[in-house]
């Protein structure tokens, strides 16, 4: 095994890590806000990927230009999910919250299979294609663009949450729902906003990776599983934790694939999750 292969794998892992980080950030934001894990997060991502695919196939719109549409659509889906389902189970036992979002996940996944069949679909000729070479290392251009896009979106999200008034109001709601309400923050709207933004995160990620990733009804499962692991590792509710854990998971995946076996790359990530939560149950940067 040459040094180039290892470096190449690690850089690919790093690129993948930025995508995982954005997906996890959306999940983490919602959890931080109301302590609910959205088990339909991967299915939201799947919907974004299908949207991108159909916009390309039916209207010839390139995945790059589908991003704003996906953001808007997923934001709406997130808000509708909040008002339709989540608002009613805010104070319900944890199990009810789990089954509600799991039910939604199963529903969306089978709906996709019902409407669009279980076929694997590919966007065959996106604008961003081919590969680039940097110091003897070859990288797929779609991968580089997707990762850069996700990192950029993550930056926006971080800025929004920490530097804008609405973002601060979100944080206040996350810290103390009742006190925030007394300060004049409409907490229900904040929850809806949180769901909208959380879903929009996978809207961006889904649109970006559609240019090189297969689109099929079950595609969200692995991204969601990795996002749960990322969020738990980074600490529920911590954005920076999601970023660092996302990158770590991308690197572990790449290293595991070349050092052990590609078949076990996710297994190794899951093992790392177990080790982290057993040694430090709050996750690396957790508040909870």
């Amino acid at each position: 095994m040459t040094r180039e292969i290892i470096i190449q794998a690690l850089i690919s892992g790093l690129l993948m890590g930025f995508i995982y980080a954005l997906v996890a950030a959306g999940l983490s934001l919602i959890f931080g806000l109301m302590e609910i894990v959205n088990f339909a997060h991967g299915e939201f991502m799947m919907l974004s990927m299908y949207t991108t695919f159909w916009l390309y196939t039916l209207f010839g719109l390139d995945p790059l230009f589908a991003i704003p549409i996906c953001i808007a659509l997923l934001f709406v889906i997130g808000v509708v999910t909040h008002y339709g389902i989540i608002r009613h189970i805010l104070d319900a036992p944890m199990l009810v919250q789990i089954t509600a979002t799991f039910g939604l996940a199963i529903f969306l996944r089978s709906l996709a299979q019902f409407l669009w069949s279980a076929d694997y679909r590919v966007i065959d000729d996106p604008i961003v294609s081919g590969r680039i070479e940097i110091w003897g290392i070859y990288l797929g251009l779609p991968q580089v663009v997707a990762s850069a896009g996700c990192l950029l979106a993550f930056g926006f999200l971080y800025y929004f949450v920490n530097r804008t008034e609405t973002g601060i109001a979100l944080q206040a709601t996350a810290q103390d729902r009742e006190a925030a309400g007394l300060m004049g923050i409409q907490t229900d709207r904040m929850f809806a906003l949180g769901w909208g933004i959380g879903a929009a995160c996978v809207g961006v990620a889904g649109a970006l990776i559609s240019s090189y990733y297969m689109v099929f009804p079950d595609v969200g499962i692995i991204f969601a599983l990795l996002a749960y692991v990322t969020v738990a590792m980074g600490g529920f509710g911590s954005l920076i934790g999601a970023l660092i854990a996302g990158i770590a998971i991308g690197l572990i995946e790449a290293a595991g694939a070349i050092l052990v076996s590609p078949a076990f790359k996710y297994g190794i990530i899951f093992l790392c999750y177990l080790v982290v939560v057993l040694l430090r149950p709050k996750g690396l940067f957790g508040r909870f």
Partner: protein
Amino acid sequence: MVTEGSDTRIVTPRRLGGRIPLILLSVAALVFPWVFEDAHTQHVLIMIFIYGLMALGWNIIAGYCGQISLGQAIFFGIGAYSTSFLFANFGITPWIGMLFGVAVSLVVAVGIGLPTLRLRGHYFAIATLVIGEITQTIFINWEYVGGATGIWIPIVWDDPWYTFQFHDSKIPTYYIGLAFLTGGLAFTYWMERSKLGLYFRAIRDEPDAASSLGVNLGRYKLLAFMIAATFASLAGSQFAQYILVIDPDTVFPLLLSILIVLMTMLGGLGQIWGPVVGAAVLLPISEATRIYFGGQGGAEDLMIYGFLIVIISVFYPRGLFGLIERLIKRRDNAGS
């Protein structure tokens, strides 16, 4: 702060109308295969028994003890693989294989439970979920037990009770399934009335108070987890002997772990009959939609499952049993 499952109370058979319905139900279950002789109806009942048993186990760890395991398929798969592997490779009767499966499941349950049951809430749920995924990956890549293709149990026509293969009729499988399910129900019934059930519910509703009163949280959570594993393993063994072909995708999938959860929720969490009622409602729906849509793999049955479970979670979090109980209460109030 609402504690987990604090709104689940016990519905005893008496409150649902005394012993007579129970006796009627038993008689109906016993004569059923002689009245409905078509293979398809019997098949649906057998599936209800198998999944119902697994869901009964999950009800004990989650419904009574409050620990949400999303990895029950691990034990279902171990049960299925144990009987199949021992019979296919060594000709050992599946009855022994079944016991072997339970033994392995118990060891694995201790191995998983000891570290992870210390985790609270979502961390435990996600831990069991990822361990389930790891287990499936291991079996897909474990060539010694058949890898991704799994195990085809050799078909033997002689001595059906030794080989646990009934090719002429579904009736023996039906009664075996019914017997195990009855055993599971009886165990739950006994447990609910024993100190054990009290400890489990205390751990679910008030873990800190239970601990301060001397309930060993770790030990009893582990015990509940082991009971759940045993039920799932027994169900898995029966499933393997009924279908006769198993592979990692059919006996270890995440979806199976989730379906068990959905069934229990639908029927009524922490209710003796909840899991069985849930299985008895969901599985016929699934079969009916599969027939209606012609089994094109369009996942219509899962679409209905998903939709139902969202509705149940949002509007009737106590399941069908909660609904029935509410109706009965209303009737009683109107009567008095």
